[in-house]
Structures are given as C-alpha cells and as structure tokens.
C-alpha cells in the first residue's frame, strides 16, 4: 500500500501502560532513534513509587513522553499529540492530557470487561463515544504480536511481553525512524538469550510491517533533523550527565573521585552510574546511611580526593550536621540533591524544587554554603564541573540541586572535548606558611579567603582541625569572642566572594522593551523558555533570566531585578527563591507556584505571563 508522507515540525508522543509493559524501555529506544535522526528532543518518564504496582490499576501506570522536533526543543511538551495506551488504565490516566484531536493508539486486546472494571470504566471507552474528539487507532497489539511469534520457541507470556516491540516497530514506521540502532540494541541486550532476541526482533519488524499494510494509518510522518551546532551528540538524562560531569571535574582537577552515598530515589542512578567506572579510578562507597555517606566523602576530601555525596531531600536532612562540619573545616565537598516531592517521604518518584531553603539555611549556626542548580538534563554536566571549581578553589562544601524531572528526563547533549573543559587547578599545600616556619592551616588566600588544603602524607604540615571554633590563622581551638565574630564573618565573606568569579546574570529580551521579567532557577528553565518563545511569537514582550548560582547570586542580580516593572518567579514550591530575592533585594517579586510533583507546562506559564504583561501594560 502506498502511503502519503507528511512533514511535521514537532510531535509529542506519550506511551502509557503497566509498570511491567516496558514503557520506559520503549520510550528510550524511540528517543534514541529520533536523536540519531537528528531531531532535537526532550523526554519525561513518569512511574509509580511501587516497584510493580498491581497490574492493570491506575497507580500501576507507567508512562514515557517524548517531544521531538526539527527545531530547538525546550520541554517534553505540554499536551501529547499521540497517546499509545497499552491498557485501559493507561488510557484513563492519560487521556485528559492529550491535545484535542490527537491520535490514540490502543491495544484493543486489553480492553476486556475485567480490565475496564478495574479502573472504573463502566462502559468501554472505545465504543461509548468518549473518544469522539480523537483519532482512534484500534490495534490488537497483543494478539498481533502473539500471532507474529507463532512458531518461536518461547512461552505465550514471553510472546505477549514482546508487544512493546511491536508497538515500537509501528511507531518507528509511522514517524520514519531509523531502525538499525534498536536492532543493535536488542542484539546486545539479549545476546545471552537468542530465542528472546529473535522474538523481539520479529515483533519489532512485525509492528513496522503492520503499519505499512494496515489501512488504519494512511499517512507517514517525517520530522526533519533540527539544525544544531556542529559536534558529536548523544541523548543524555540528568543523572548520567551529573555522573559524567563529576568524572570530568575530577579529571580536570587531577584528583581521584570518591562518592560516598546511600541509595534514594531519584538519586540512586548517579551512584549506579559512577560505580561502573572503576577503570577511571572512581571509588564508590555505598554507606550504611546518608550520614556515613557524607562522612566518608568528607574524609576522602580531607585525604585529598574530590569527595562527593549524592542524595535527595530526606537524605540532605540527615547530612546537615556533617555539612556544617565541612563548612567549619573549610574542605571541598560536593553534595548533590536530586530533589523530589516533599515534605517527609512525600512523593518519592515525582519532581519538586522545595529543598532550596533547606540547602541554604538548614544547618545550625551561621554556616553558609554555595548553591548551584542545573537547568536541563545536559546542564547537570556543566553544573557538576562548576561545583568542583568552587569547592576546590574556595575549600567549601557546595550544593548541586537537580530534581526528579532532570534526573530522568533526557535531551541531546553535545559531547564536550575534555581538554576544552575548564581547567581546574588544584594545589595542595606543601610547605609551612608561618613566619616562624610553622604551618597555619587557617591562613587564608587574600583573594579567595581559601585556607590551605594540606593533605595527610605531607611532611611538616601535620595539624589538627575540628568542629570547635578555631583561631583564624593557627586553627587552634579558640573561645575568644572577637575571633568567633570574625570567623563567622570570614566564612560568610568567603562565600560572597565567589560572586567575583561567576558570570553576570544574562537576560534574554529580544524585543528589548519588556517590562516583565520572568526569573527562574533549575528545571523550570525549559517550560519558562518555551512559554517566553510562544509569547514572543504572539507579540507579547517578556524578558527571561535564569539563575544557575543561587548562593551567591551573580553580582548584577539586584540591578537586573530593578530594571523591570514586574518580576515573576515561577517555582515548583511555595516561593523559596522568591523569599531569597525579596529578602536580599527588597523587590516585590511575584511567585507563580505549583507544587504538583510535575513540571510546569509552558502553556500555563504563558497564560499566566500574558495576564501579567497585560496588567503591567494597563497599570
């Protein structure tokens, strides 16, 4: 059958099914195919907190969304154009998000009475007209897969489990994706089980052929590659990018990387990733708890390694006391907080930005710590390097904030040339620095206020440090009131001085006359930028800036804020950056806050900003 081919600029597809249906894998493969094809893209996985919630239930639904385009993509997309629902639960949980008139591909085999009842469908939505506003493609995915695999030496269950490959084949055909990558992937994955490999390859090809032969799909779509700067690219998620960034930073510092960590969702994958790379000299230590994880990392830093710990919000709560020790010891340490929904256990698999005040202020006494936040999955790489720069240059713990959305979401990443990455020069103290030949562990660099990093094994620099207040210079225990006041201020000043080494806050205001600034931090970058782009296309003028450094702020931040009539700060919390900005700059920033465990949609942001711009214009 000859099909028509249609060019599209962008498509958002969401795959939804049971936790056991392999939606994450299917989505990953489709993403990889699109990446290799050269589309720009962004992905959003979404899965339940349970390992395998009961099959066919709403809480058991696992979904994966991918947005791919022939141009710069900023978010995984607000509303899918296409929903692939592997069962009634997948349909029910996701239909409301679909764009009106979008395509729905369903596995009709799963729309049994029992399955419908499990999710509270009283009648079959495939028949009762509730899908009238959509293009529905009814495909008997399961039985078609089983039929295609007849004769294979596998069980029926195994055959059924290949239906995700059938679906992937169909989608790959529909969107004209290259298939070599997926076939190679399957070959590697099932190298040890040839019968399963065969089944998956067969199902994948059957899906492709089904598309070609069925009449249900009359049009093939193409999405051209997006123009991208020259370079070698790969698709990467935030956790992997963070792990790679830490490795690159250690290499640039010339230090071994030591990770002390305790598993916690959604940060565990950083531990998993780093533990694979022993050949790079990376040591990973899965500790008995978060306190021991950060303790070991601090010990490693003291011993001359780049000490890192990774965790999420509840883990930060536990590490707090040790981070306070690191502040007063003035040793490098990187603490990565992959934020998730809180408070307490909260929504462990969902995203949120509500740890900012915790990492800023959650320590006893005056214990300032620099804070950085990544804006996109690939940006986690760069932020890790910046964190290492600050930690080693200023001898201070540094927080890196990412979140569940960045951790698992992915986008194309231009692979850096290692030698072009910032050179991080680390020098250990090797000689006594005192007037009388003694070593003064708290004698500071006049510029950075950093103290010497004198690692054990260095003769002549034997010294003792600890958590009790120290005399500046000698580092000896000191209860002197004036010294304490001085030290509290020096530690604060040291962190403030970091601002001298960071770039100014950049504002994007292409029209040059915006009166409203939208200022974000962290993973809201994508939706905010997309919203601004859409608004500008509409002719609504709005300026955008995004903070990577949250402590200290770039030196021009106050000046930037003062240039606008209104500053809107969207956050996935109740206004934590707002609080910091208001306190520091006395600017009446207006928060736009949603705490739903999900990223913002660019639409809701655009809607809000449009109103604000109107208000300001009217005022």
């Amino acid at each position, binding site marked *: 059958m000859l099909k028509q081919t249609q060019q599209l600029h962008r498509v958002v597809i969401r795959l939804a099914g049971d936790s056991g249906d392999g939606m994450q894998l299917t989505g990953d493969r489709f993403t*990889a195919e699109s*990446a*290799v094809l*050269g589309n720009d893209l962004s992905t959003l996985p979404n899965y339940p907190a349970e390992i395998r919630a009961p099959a066919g239930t709403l809480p058991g639904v696992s979904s994966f969304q991918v947005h791919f385009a022939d141009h710069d993509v900023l978010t995984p997309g607000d509303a899918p154009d296409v929903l692939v629902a592997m069962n009634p639960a997948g349909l029910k949980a996701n239909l409301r998000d679909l764009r009106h008139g979008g395509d729905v591909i369903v596995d009709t085999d799963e729309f049994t009475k029992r399955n419908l009842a499990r999710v509270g469908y009283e009648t079959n939505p495939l028949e009762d007209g509730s899908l009238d506003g959509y293009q529905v493609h009814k495909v008997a995915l399961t039985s078609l897969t089983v039929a295609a695999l007849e004769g294979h030496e596998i069980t029926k269950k195994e055959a059924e489990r290949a239906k995700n490959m059938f679906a992937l084949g169909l989608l790959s055909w529909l969107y004209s994706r290259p298939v070599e*990558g997926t076939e190679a*992937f399957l070959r*590697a994955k099932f190298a040890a089980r040839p019968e399963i490999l065969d089944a998956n390859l067969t199902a994948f090809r059957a899906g492709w052929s089904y598309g070609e032969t069925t009449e249900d799909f009359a049009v093939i779509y193409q999405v051209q*590659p997006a123009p991208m700067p*020259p*370079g*070698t*690219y*790969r698709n990467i998620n935030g956790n992997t990018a963070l792990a*790679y960034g830490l*490795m*690159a930073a250690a290499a640039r510092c010339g230090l071994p990387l*030591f990770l002390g960590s305790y598993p916690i969702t959604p940060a565990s994958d950083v531990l998993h990733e780093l533990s694979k*790379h*022993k*050949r*790079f*000299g*990376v*040591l990973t*230590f899965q*500790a*008995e*708890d978060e*306190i*021991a994880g950060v*303790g*070991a990392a*601090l*010990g*490693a830093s*003291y*011993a*001359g390694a780049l*000490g890192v710990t990774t965790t999420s919000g509840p883990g930060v709560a536990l590490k707090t006391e*040790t981070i*306070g*020790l690191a502040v007063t*010891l003035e040793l490098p340490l990187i603490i990565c907080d992959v934020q998730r929904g809180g408070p307490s256990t909260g929504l462990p698999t969902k995203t949120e930005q509500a740890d900012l005040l915790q990492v800023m202020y959650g320590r006893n006494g005056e214990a300032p710590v620099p804070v950085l936040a990544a804006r996109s999955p690939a940006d986690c790489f760069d932020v890790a390097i910046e964190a290492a720069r600050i930690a080693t240059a200023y001898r201070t713990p540094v927080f890196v904030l990412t979140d569940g959305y960045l951790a698992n979401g992915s986008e194309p990443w231009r*692979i850096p*040339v*290692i030698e072009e990455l910032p050179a991080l020069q680390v020098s250990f103290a090797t000689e006594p620095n005192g007037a009388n030949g003694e070593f003064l562990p708290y004698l500071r660099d006049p510029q950075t206020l950093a103290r010497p990093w004198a*690692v*054990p*094994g*260095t*003769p*002549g*620099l*034997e*010294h*003792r*440090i*600890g*958590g009790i207040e120290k005399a500046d210079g000698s580092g000896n*225990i000191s209860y002197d009131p004036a010294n304490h006041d001085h030290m509290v201020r020096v530690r604060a000043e040291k962190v403030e001085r970091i601002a001298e080494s960071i770039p100014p806050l950049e504002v994007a205001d292409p029209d040059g006359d915006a009166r409203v600034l939208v200022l974000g931090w962290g993973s809201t970058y994508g939706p905010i930028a997309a919203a601004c782009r859409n608004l500008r296309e509409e002719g609504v003028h709005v300026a955008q800036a995004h903070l990577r450094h949250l402590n200290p702020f770039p030196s021009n931040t106050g000046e930037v804020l003062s240039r606008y009539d209104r500053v809107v700060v969207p956050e996935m919390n109740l206004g934590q950056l707002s609080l910091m900005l208001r306190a520091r700059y006395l600017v009446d920033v207006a928060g736009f806050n949603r705490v739903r465990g999900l990223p913002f949609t660019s639409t809701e942001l655009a809607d809000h900003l449009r109103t604000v711009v109107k208000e300001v214009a009217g005022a």
Partner: protein
Amino acid sequence: MTGTTISAVEAGLGPSGLYGVPLVGEGHPLGKKDFTSDQEVRWCPGCGDYAVLAAVQSFLPELGLRRENIVFVSGIGCSSRFPYYLDTYGMHSIHGRAPAIASGIAVSRPDLSVWVVTGDGDALSIGGNHIAHALRRNINITILLFNNRIYGLTKGQYSPTSEAGKITKSTPMGSLDTPFNPVSFAIGSEATFVARALDSDRKQLTAVLRAAAEHRGASFVEIYQNCPIFNDGAFDPLKSPDTRDEQMIRLEHGQPIRWGEQGRHGLGRDPRSGQLVSVEVADVGEEALVVHDDHNEDPAYAFALSRLSDPPIGRTPVGVFRSVRRPTYDDMAREQVAHAQSTQGPGDLAQLFAGKDSWTVD
C-alpha cells in the same frame, strides 16, 4: 600521595595493618616528643585519658611510620580531644561519626595509618551503627574506644556501657537499660580484631595497641578508662592490688587461660553444655584448661569469652579476644579499581561520554 621511600612492605613487614604506609628513614627514629603537639592538654586532673595519651605517644615511634602518614580521627567527648595532643594529622569531628570519616580516608589512601578515637557514648550510643558497619566491612582502621562508662563531656549522664541501676543526673532513680558489652557487640558485628585494655596498665595497653596496629582490617580496642569526676573508680577492682589478681583474666594467644594468685583459677568447659566455666587448676590440671586461640575463625569462641565479664565490673578478660584474617574493604575496593584498569585499560572519558548511540552534526 607523597614520595614514599621505604614502605612497610619493603621493610619486610608483610601485609600487616601498616603495609603501604611509608616508614621513616633508617637512622632517623622518632621519639615520644615527636608525637607530642604544642597544645596544652585539658583533661581533668587524674583523668585516665592522660595515661592512654602517654602510652600512645610512647608507642607510636615504635611503629617506625612517618609522622605525616598517621591520621587520628575522633568524634566528640572528653576522649575525643585526643588528636589535638598528637603531632600527627588529626581531625576532631562530630559526635559519633568518626568511623565514617575514617572510612573515607582509609579507602582513599593506602599510605595512611588511620586511627579512630572515640568514647563509649560516641561509639556505642550515637555512633553504634557506624562502628558496627566499619567492623563488618573490615576497613583498615584502628578504633580506640575509651570506655569510662559515663558521658564525661556533658557532665555525667549514664552511657550505653553504664551498669544497670546507675544513678546519674538523667537517671536519679537508676538507669534501666542493660548495658552493651562492647566486646560482644563488636563480635556480633563480624569484627576481625577485638581486644580490651586498661588505661593504667601501660604494658598491657601497649601490647594490645601493637597487635591492633599490626592487624590489617578494623581493629577494635576497648580501653577501660577512669573518669575521676563522674564515675570514679569504675575499674578499681581491676586495679586494686587486693582484687586485681582475682578479677583480671589476661588472654595470651597459645596459653591456657589462668588467673588468680599463682594462676590458681583456670577456664575450662562444662563437658555437657560446652559452656565456659571457671575451674580450680589444682582440681582439674592444666591440660583441662582452654588454651586461648585468638585466631579461632569461629567468633562463637571469642563471644563466649566476652561473656565472662561479670557486671558491673568483676572477673574480666583483657587482651586480644579475636584476631583473624579477612580481606579488608579498602584493599578490595582498590583492587577492583586496579583490576578494572588492568583488564579494561584506563578509562577514556571521550569514549565513555559518546556511549553507543551518538551522532555527529557537521
């Protein structure tokens, strides 16, 4: 890290706890004063900590290690002030967390001799879990637990080793908890080296320190330490000339376990229950005694010995209870790195980053 001239292994010491730690050159031996820092010692007059400090300062030179390759890490408590007084590298950290910090140091640096100094509250109250995990991992560190059976620094609350019924500021009607037996706890945590010593017995303490330093892996040394201010005389039965011979059981590897005047008591086994029982040597003959074997792989033996301690402080074995070989976490971790590097070659970041699914835009 820094240039090593003569390492312990080159010196023929073999894979001991000090393997890999550089030694001072021949002809430059260090002395006690080299290990004495310029800080004024600030314990109460008569505190047992002084005796332990003196013993450690005198003993350290014997190891022949370079001073700069020794690190003492402590938690919080009176005893945890220890590192300030030693002219080595040192960190006075936070309450209970020294084993975790020391683990990071030891795993990162095979060329350091890493010591943990901790108290009964620091180690067994807030820090109990870190101690237990360091022991089961067999991290190559030496843990000195100063057990004065009281919280000294916070002025005298009962600790997890205080005898039940103890009247303190926080337990005016007597404490209710059964204390930990630190030796039993360590053995229950899969420790490979467990010993006990007394602050006031320099010779015995030094012998135990020597064995602990020599052991590769986590060495756990409980040191009974007198706190004259808040728990004075807690260990007097082991110190007083009137009672000590009857109470203190000195464990010596390969020797029958005997104590009392002229070694008249001995340790035997009840033939039916298998339980350790005290016997009169005159009655049963020396052959019937248990011969101490600290290399016994089965921890049940050392555990049974640990139960001989009668609370609050009566008959008490001191010396090395257990000393068995098991690979250390840190050695194995570094071996995994070395193995990965030798089989897969050193990593190439560019190749790693590119992964399997990369594409190029020109």
